[in-house]
């Protein structure tokens, strides 16, 4: 919505400010076999803790285009234990294109290890625009993200304005 001098402000517009679009969702079942040295979308098939605009698809895409404008987005990829290779990474992508500044990296561990992205601003321009959380590793074999109790990949998005 936008406000204009001399125009009545409707309650629905103010109430919308009190309840901006938001998503917090996780991975619920193990995504096996993420190929080495390949950026891959993380599947977010858990029941969202909150998803006010029905942005979650149950797959990797989170359709922030449900509300056109700017969203704050961040995510976490937690990898299973595997000490091979040199790096574990995560980033945020819009329609498959990585968002500058969202990249984060850490070393591999024999035990589980998390990579949290910075929080970045992403603009939804059309209704189909979707963000994904992406992971990357260079282990000697395919490896999976971790799903054990509260340890799991997650993505958070909140609408902040047009």
């Amino acid at each position, binding site marked *: 919505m936008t406000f204009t001098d001399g125009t009545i402000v409707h309650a629905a517009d*103010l109430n919308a400010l*009190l309840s901006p679009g*938001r998503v*917090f969702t996780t991975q619920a079942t193990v995504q096996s076999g993420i190929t080495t040295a390949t950026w891959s979308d993380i599947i977010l098939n858990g029941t969202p*803790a909150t998803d006010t605009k029905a942005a979650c698809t149950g797959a990797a895409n989170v359709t922030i285009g449900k509300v056109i404008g700017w969203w704050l987005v961040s995510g*976490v990829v937690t990898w299973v234990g595997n000490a091979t290779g040199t790096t574990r990474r995560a980033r945020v992508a819009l329609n498959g294109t990585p968002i500058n500044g969202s990249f984060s990296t850490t070393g591999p561990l024999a035990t589980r290890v998390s990579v949290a992205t910075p*929080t970045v601003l992403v603009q939804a321009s059309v209704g189909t625009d979707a963000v994904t959380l992406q992971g990357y590793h260079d282990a000697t074999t395919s490896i999976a993200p971790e799903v054990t*109790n*509260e*340890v799991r990949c997650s993505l958070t998005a909140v609408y902040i304005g047009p």
Partner: protein
Amino acid sequence: MTAPPTFSDGVVVHATDLNFLLNPPACMVQQNTAQAAIPASTYTPITFDAESYDPYNLHSTSTNTSRVNIGLVLGWWHVSGCVSWATNATGNTRRCILGINGTFVNGSQILVSPAPQIVSAPLPGIFVQSTVNTDYIELQGWHDATASVATLVSGTYRSYLAARYLAAA
């Protein structure tokens, strides 16, 4: 408990309601004094002895200092935090996790390597919901070093917990 405003057509909008929109309940608390001797393999609440911002008194520096009382306003809160660990390269992992009333939140656990240098486990923003006025959040730390490990307070290296009210439903 503070009730968020609701707006209805034809009803006067009060300044306090618009000011709530401009300045919703929020706080950021941090450690200015290191928390010594966190035992191995035990989830331990991180205590905060300083408040960078807490106009709604969501936190106390004298009682239950690990807690941020998000039950003050019922609804959804955007929460982030970090546990900053002192140097200790033993063991396999350093963790941070968010709890609401002591129950861990799915997707909130961060696991990092016990690098030979200082190490931080940062939790980016996630959403949690308060449903009763006694609800509180805590950041908890965990490690598997061969001895107790302290948190780190040095310059800008320190543990923190931040929360901002976002919406009623």
